[in-house]
């Protein structure tokens, strides 16, 4: 997949809340059809980076390019158009609580397509079936479990057949089995539909299962300190911090144990 063309490019990006810089000098490329992971310890700005990429928060400096077109430098109309190519799964699912699942999924179709109500309903049912929620069309979000909400959120993200899917911590709050099912679903979406998928996570098991490529954001130096395939990084990264993260802190633990036994 390494030969695939560039899809998203982040250039010289700095993000900040007011004067407080969270991350600076971010430069990386997401290739078309890749599963790309943004990882790092808690509080390093992973979710903020995602917010900038999906157009919810403006960067302090720098730019995000989609297919070579700058996103933030373009007018709001162009941005809106671009946003329609995104499907986003938020951390909590972010389903609209006043609507049923079918209405949630139907909303973007109702707004952006010419489909009739019956077609929308049919399409929503299909999307629900894709994520394993067949028959739950008329449930409200508060009537289903957390894992189901996430899957329903994914069904909504798929509503307009987006080019790029963004996932914000998809496995947070899921049991290991559901989390694995979600990983498989992600891979299937990539393979069957050829989507580019950007995932924010620090769940190692799913990182190694799904990732083609990743960046590692470091909260201490406030920039990215590694970029590449996570398996390669785990074995060969020159940066001990990155290897330690990907080995679940085992390097540090070994060092400590050695310290104790001496």
């Amino acid at each position, binding site marked *: 997949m390494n030969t695939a063309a560039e899809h998203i490019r982040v250039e010289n990006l700095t993000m900040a809340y007011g004067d407080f810089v969270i991350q600076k000098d971010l430069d990386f490329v997401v290739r078309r059809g890749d599963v790309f992971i943004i990882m790092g310890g808690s509080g390093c700005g992973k979710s903020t980076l995602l*917010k900038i990429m999906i*157009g*919810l928060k403006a960067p302090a400096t720098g730019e995000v390019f989609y297919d070579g077109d700058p996103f933030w430098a373009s007018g709001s109309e162009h941005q809106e158009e671009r946003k*329609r190519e995104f499907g986003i799964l938020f951390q909590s699912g972010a389903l*609209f609580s006043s609507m049923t699942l079918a209405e949630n999924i139907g909303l973007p179709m109702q*707004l*952006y397509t010419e489909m009739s109500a019956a077609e929308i309903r049919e399409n929503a049912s299909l999307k629900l079936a894709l994520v394993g929620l067949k028959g739950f069309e008329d449930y409200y979000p508060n009537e289903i479990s957390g894992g189901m909400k996430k899957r329903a959120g994914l069904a909504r993200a798929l509503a307009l057949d987006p080019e790029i899917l963004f996932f914000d911590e998809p496995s947070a709050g899921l049991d290991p089995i559901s989390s694995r099912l979600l990983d498989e679903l992600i891979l299937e979406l990539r393979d069957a539909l050829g989507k580019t998928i950007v995932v924010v996570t620090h769940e190692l098991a799913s990182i190694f299962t799904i990732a083609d490529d990743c960046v590692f954001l470091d909260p201490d130096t406030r920039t990215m300190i590694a970029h590449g395939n996570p398996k390669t990084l785990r074995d060969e990264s020159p940066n001990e911090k990155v290897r330690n993260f990907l080995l679940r802190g085992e390097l540090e633990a070994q060092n400590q144990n050695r310290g104790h036994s001496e």
Partner: protein
Amino acid sequence: MLQADGLGSWDTSLIGFLAKCIATGESGEREFDASAMPEGVQGLLRLAFAVEERSGARRTTTRKGLLVRLGEASLDAVDRMREGLAFLGSATLALGRFLVGRARYQGSELFLLIQDTGANAFAIVSLISFLVGMILAFVGAVQLSQFGAGIYVANLVGLAMAREMGAMMTAIIMAGRTGASFAAQLGTMRVNEEIDALSSMGIDPMEFLVVPRMIALMVMMPLLALYANFMGILGGMVVGVGMLDLGVFEYVEQTRRSVSLTQINIGIIKAVVFGVLVAVAGCLRGMQCGNSSQAVGMAATSAVVTSIVLIIVTDGLFAVVLNVLGL
């Protein structure tokens, strides 16, 4: 050397004490040796000292001077004012798009909102305005009957309800009922990332969430105020007929003669304006809501306070302007 021979059971307060000893010992160059302590205690002590305190993580509270605090508070107030104005501006633009039919919203949602703000508020508006009418009549009756002018209670109640109290009491009920609920709804949607989800779909939350709420209140407020006028006058009549022995027909006729259409129109216009204020204050506080359940509660409180302040201040402005216009 710390010893604990014969120690039966212990809890983390022991660890706390020991950790403090060791920490003081380090700064006072005296060493405490905990190696004679039970295994579990040693393990926990190791954990307590395993990770160095992150520099800058501890919050230091320094008392700021009065001037600094005053300055910060005023800068804050200016910021909030600017945010409020920006919100009002984009709400107006969105309302404009709604009026030319270019806004994205859901008709069914608007219908539900109208039902909730209008029909479901009927009972409370009836009760409150009926009682307000009665209270006005009581106060008037005691004073006016001393001069044998009891019939003028009808004028007092009619004018007061039509011009002021009908719109004002409805607005205050709406601020507590609907404004707070708007703030809580939008606040929860903010916490739940639903608002982010909307904007990422390219849907303007202003058009989708704020405008329908404004419309619902703008449509329902004048109707409710008109109804409140009626209930208030009815309340006044109960007192007039029951306490002052006025005839029903007499009371109605006196009210009709004293309350002109202009007075009623003034009340209606006020009701529309108050409706906008309550909707804007509720939605503004909801959209500004922070990221926690506590923030949602604060948003609701702040929405009610803001709307009531705005209602009273605007009513004062109305009084001045109408006075100048001679109405």
